[in-house]
């Protein structure tokens, strides 16, 4: 009991989110005319308060709730990142500027949003196999509902069904793997598993652990949309309402990487300064390296021929998952830091790109790239903003996307000549990616439409949020030392009692 009380104190942001979630549900249930406004204000207020408390409570490293979760600097970093992502999505994407969500009930949407945020954080702080599985499923189940939010829309429902079936199989395989991991090690706690493995494994057990790691990776791969668990991604991103797509492409992906890193770094590796050791000489790094190479190649090559913007950005997000995974593969302090920096940069560039896509859909009612010609003359701000976001996704200096790529490639090259081919594959992929991003730019700026449509002006809040996300791609470089320092001090993982 004292443990639970002490844990509650460290769990304040999560408790605030839970409270806000309950209030939103109650406000929506009143049926009053003000319920939409109230649920929006409650959501924004709850997220902002949770973000502030999360930053204030930062520091220290401790297990909470009997070792089910762990609050360490890494968890605090992801807490802030995940709450921040939800806050940006809620503020920038509204029911007014999304044509797809227009006229639908808001209370349910915001309560789902808070629930996903809460479960994202739980996923990033999980320290026990049971907690890991619970949080992963909680993220998944709430996202299924969000994807199907347009009840009368066939695409939205079909996307959700594909998402559910794919997710159920992946997480089922993961659970089967987790059950064997428990059977083999006799514990569900990640640090205890590491201790068991570090004490030495027999050859037959080593084979079993390889198989287990592959099964468990099915769950992480599904959450982060990496090959060969990426098939749901383009369909779901295309079918879901765009605000949901934007959210899914950043927050659950970040949480997925957080738990992937936590599982492999605390469960299957022994920390030290510089490159870490593998626990029980189980070489999962090689497997993840192959997955990373396949992920970025498949994502980039498939994106080359896409004409639907949401599908194009879906394949681009698969490719980015490949780059982010380079940080996990590096298995060092710098690799972990690169992963964090990349996810932070990815938040601003990807949300920005999706905001532009949403706003074009609001004015023109289209997601098709073939309807984008002449956009430059119709809305210069939107075109310039999209150019910045795409250049950032490409990794062009001096934008944040470049810093993300710089950190991951540096972390890989630092591991020595055996990793050079891997970095080279990444570089070739970045070049392929530049082609299709540039194609979007060319369509917007150079191509002319057969029928010139009249120019349009963005509403004030939309224009303001385009500007904010645009500055989010440029301004962080001014305070780069602080951001780098934040990531550097967030590196310590909870390693055991």
């Amino acid at each position, binding site marked *: 009991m004292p443990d639970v009380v002490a844990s509650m104190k460290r769990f304040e942001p999560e408790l605030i989110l839970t409270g806000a979630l309950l209030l939103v549900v109650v406000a929506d249930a009143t049926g009053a005319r003000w319920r939409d406004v109230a649920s929006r204000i409650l959501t924004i207020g709850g997220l902002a308060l949770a973000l502030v408390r999360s930053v204030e409570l930062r520091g220290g490293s401790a297990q909470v709730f009997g070792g089910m979760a762990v609050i360490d600097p890494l968890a605090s970093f992801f807490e802030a990142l995940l709450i921040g992502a939800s806050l940006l999505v809620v503020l920038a994407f509204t029911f007014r500027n999304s044509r797809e969500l227009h006229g639908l009930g808001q209370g349910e949407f915001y309560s789902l949003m808070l629930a996903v945020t809460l479960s994202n954080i739980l996923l990033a702080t999980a320290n026990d196999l049971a907690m890991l599985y*619970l949080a992963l499923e909680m993220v998944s189940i709430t996202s299924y509902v969000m994807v199907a939010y347009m009840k009368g829309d*066939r695409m939205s429902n079909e996307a959700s069904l594909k998402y559910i079936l794919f997710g159920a199989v992946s997480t089922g395989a993961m659970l089967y793997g987790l*059950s064997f991991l428990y059977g083999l090690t006799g*514990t569900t706690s990640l640090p205890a598993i590491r201790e068991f493995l570090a004490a030495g494994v027999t050859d037959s057990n080593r084979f079993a652990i390889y198989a287990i790691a592959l099964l468990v990776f099915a769950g992480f791969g599904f959450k982060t949309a990496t090959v060969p668990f990426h098939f749901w991604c383009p369909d779901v991103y295309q079918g879901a309402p765009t605000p949901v797509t934007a959210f899914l492409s950043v927050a659950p992906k970040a949480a997925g990487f957080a738990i992937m890193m936590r599982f492999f770094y605390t469960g299957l590796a022994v920390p030290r300064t510089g490159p870490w050791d593998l626990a029980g000489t189980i070489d999962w790094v090689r497997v993840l390296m192959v997955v990373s190479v396949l992920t970025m190649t498949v994502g980039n090559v498939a994106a080359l021929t896409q004409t639907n913007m949401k599908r194009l950005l879906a394949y681009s997000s698969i490719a980015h998952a490949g780059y982010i995974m380079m940080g996990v593969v590096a298995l060092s302090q710098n690799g972990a830091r690169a992963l964090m920096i990349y996810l932070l940069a990815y938040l601003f560039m990807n949300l920005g790109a999706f905001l532009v896509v949403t706003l074009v859909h609001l004015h023109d009612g289209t997601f098709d790239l073939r309807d984008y010609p002449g956009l430059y003359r119709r809305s210069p701000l939107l075109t310039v903003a999209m150019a910045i976001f795409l250049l950032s996704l490409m990794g062009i200096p001096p934008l944040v996307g470049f810093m993300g790529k710089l950190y991951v490639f540096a972390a890989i090259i630092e591991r020595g000549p055996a990793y050079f081919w891997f970095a080279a594959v990444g570089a070739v992929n970045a070049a392929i990616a530049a082609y299709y991003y540039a194609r979007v730019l060319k369509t917007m700026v150079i191509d002319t439409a057969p029928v010139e449509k009249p120019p349009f002006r963005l509403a004030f809040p939309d224009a303001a949020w385009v500007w904010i996300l645009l500055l989010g791609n440029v301004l962080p470089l001014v305070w780069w030392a602080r951001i780098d320092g934040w990531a550097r001090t967030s590196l310590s993982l909870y390693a055991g009692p």
Partner: protein
Amino acid sequence: MMVGLSHYLVVSSALFSLGILGILTRRNAVNVLMGVELVLNSANLNLVAFSRFGSGNLQGQLFAVFVIVIAAAEVAVALAIVLTLYRLRRTPNLDETDILRG
């Protein structure tokens, strides 16, 4: 004959394989969901068997209880989606839900 750990593991792997087989071969979405249930329950059987015969602690049984709850939640959401899709398309078959592709 004493029923031991290996008996449970054989049953659970059979369940897992049958579940995957059902998921891969069935056209009807509801049947696919039944396959998913088999997969989850095979893992449950593993967890409980390992808890009883292997580790000697109760973590596995606790885990299994949570998995049962999750499985129920997942199927509830999945069936709701299948129903809305059925209202829109008049078919529960997965090979006919194919407007998203490319």
